């Protein structure tokens, strides 16, 4: 039977804004090649025509489920160029915001993973619980999803009062919900049957292909920037990195699931010993000449922001090496797997197309 070529296009309930060219023989995928670029808005080119401060909202639109990490990487690169030191209170609040957006991004991932495997309840539960975290973020930053809260030089305004009690209450409620997710979905025999041994990425391949984030940690590599190169006072927090060695979709999913618990414990720890003091430092519009590279552990993986400045108030060149773009080689895992495994592998990489196309 001659192979069947078909494209899992942008309009397909099994693919986000991405097209996959799939070659099928019977039920086995011979070759699956991603075709990104459907959400390429050229942010790197537009960034060169705007001031440093103006770029923050546009850069965040890259990865809307996980906004704080993107703006943190951008802010840290500029602070390195300016050579300024961020007050400890701002660093701790930045950690809280990053971990909050990590939990929200993982909840978004878990709900889409549910609907991809045909479990409609698992689409609704995490999405609904994500909304109570959105309430906290809305109280802190004023907007539901795109905060522009972390800016070069610290954060825009201080934490509102009584935010600590609300967060602690939410996190306690969230502990119970995590057990329920585990009961209905993650330890469901059909889920294990569909993800165990599917899309296996060995440890050496993971490093060679340059994948990052939970995809890397699912294959036995303890690669986490927060531990390897601590930034923004992550070193004062005890941080435990979940690593699984099987390297299949199940391992990658469990890494993300464990990370949600760890992030909530980080938030609790950061909220308890929050240093006081001012929360921002005055920054100049014109950034001195030079170049800087900042690396941040976003929810999907390591995000590197490389800025070259020529002394004016606009960046000469801005390059965001985003985690989804670096997980693109992960699509080669689909070769030889069944058509039913395509959504499992695709979404176990947690690939967010606007993040990859920029």
């Amino acid at each position: 039977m001659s192979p069947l070529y078909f494209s899992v296009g942008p309009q397909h309930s099994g693919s986000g804004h991405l097209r996959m060219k799939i070659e099928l023989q019977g039920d086995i995928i011979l070759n699956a090649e991603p075709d990104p670029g459907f959400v390429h808005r050229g942010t790197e080119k537009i960034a060169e025509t705007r001031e440093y401060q103006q770029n923050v909202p546009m850069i965040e639109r890259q990865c809307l489920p996980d906004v704080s990490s993107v703006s943190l990487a951008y802010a840290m690169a500029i602070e390195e160029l300016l050579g300024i030191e961020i007050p400890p209170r701002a660093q701790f609040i930045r950690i809280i915001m990053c971990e909050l957006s990590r939990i929200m991004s993982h909840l978004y991932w878990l709900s889409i993973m549910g609907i991809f495997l045909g479990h409609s309840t698992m689409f609704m539960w995490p999405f609904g619980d994500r909304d109570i975290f959105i309430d906290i973020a809305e109280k802190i930053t004023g907007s539901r999803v795109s905060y522009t809260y972390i800016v070069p030089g610290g954060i825009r305004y201080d934490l509102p009062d009584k935010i600590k009690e609300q967060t602690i209450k939410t996190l306690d409620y969230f502990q119970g919900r995590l057990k329920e997710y585990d009961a209905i979905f993650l330890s469901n025999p059909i889920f294990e049957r569909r993800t165990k041994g599917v899309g296996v990425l060995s440890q050496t391949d993971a490093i060679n292909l340059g994948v990052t984030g939970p995809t890397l940690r699912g294959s036995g590599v303890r690669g986490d920037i927060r531990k390897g190169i601590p930034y923004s006072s992550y070193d004062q927090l005890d941080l435990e990195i979940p690593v699984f060695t099987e390297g299949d979709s199940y391992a990658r999913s469990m890494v993300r699931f464990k990370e949600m618990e760890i992030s909530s414990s980080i938030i609790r720890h950061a909220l308890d010993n929050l240093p006081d003091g001012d929360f921002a430092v005055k920054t100049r519009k014109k950034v001195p000449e030079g170049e800087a590279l900042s690396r941040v552990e976003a929810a999907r993986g390591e995000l590197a922001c490389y800025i070259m400045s020529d002394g004016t108030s606009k960046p000469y060149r801005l390059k965001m090496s985003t985690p989804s773009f670096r997980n693109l080689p992960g699509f080669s895992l689909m070769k030889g797997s069944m058509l039913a495994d395509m959504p499992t592998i695709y979404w176990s990489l947690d690939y967010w197309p606007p993040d990859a196309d920029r």
Partner: protein
Amino acid sequence: MDTVGNAFVGRLRSVVEKVVNGLKPIRYLVNWSRLYSLWPVHLTTACCSVEFGAASCPRFDVERMGMLPIGSLRQCDLIIIEGTVTKKMAKRVKKIYSQMASPRYVVAMGACSISGGLFYNSYNIIKSVDEILPVDIYVPGCPPRPEALANGIMMLQDKIRKKQVNIVKGE
């Protein structure tokens, strides 16, 4: 497509259309059924899809208005353009819109689809969705809140309530 088939074929279609438009209660019934079962196409064009997902989650449930996210494109009658439409995506959006069965409605969600939004001077986007699709409802915001989207859907429902029913060709 001239072979616009329907449950009513041939001369019956124009007769039924005359009857439906003539009698108010029947026209009301047909419009009522169309506005309470708007099935959205599963298409995410850009980053507003996060808020469309939030709109269909338990808190702002859009299924209260009968919006069942159905898989195939042939059965849908509402296309929500969520965010920026790049030139590569514009080709597909036009093809998708032509494949949908009439009557079909278009909601442009987010500032990027209305007027190019934050990326107005980008080299790779369609300035506004009006260039490729006849838009019914604009939902401003970047990204618009789920309540704003639900309000947009309700405005679309009011628009359908007052609409003239024609069965032959799509609006």
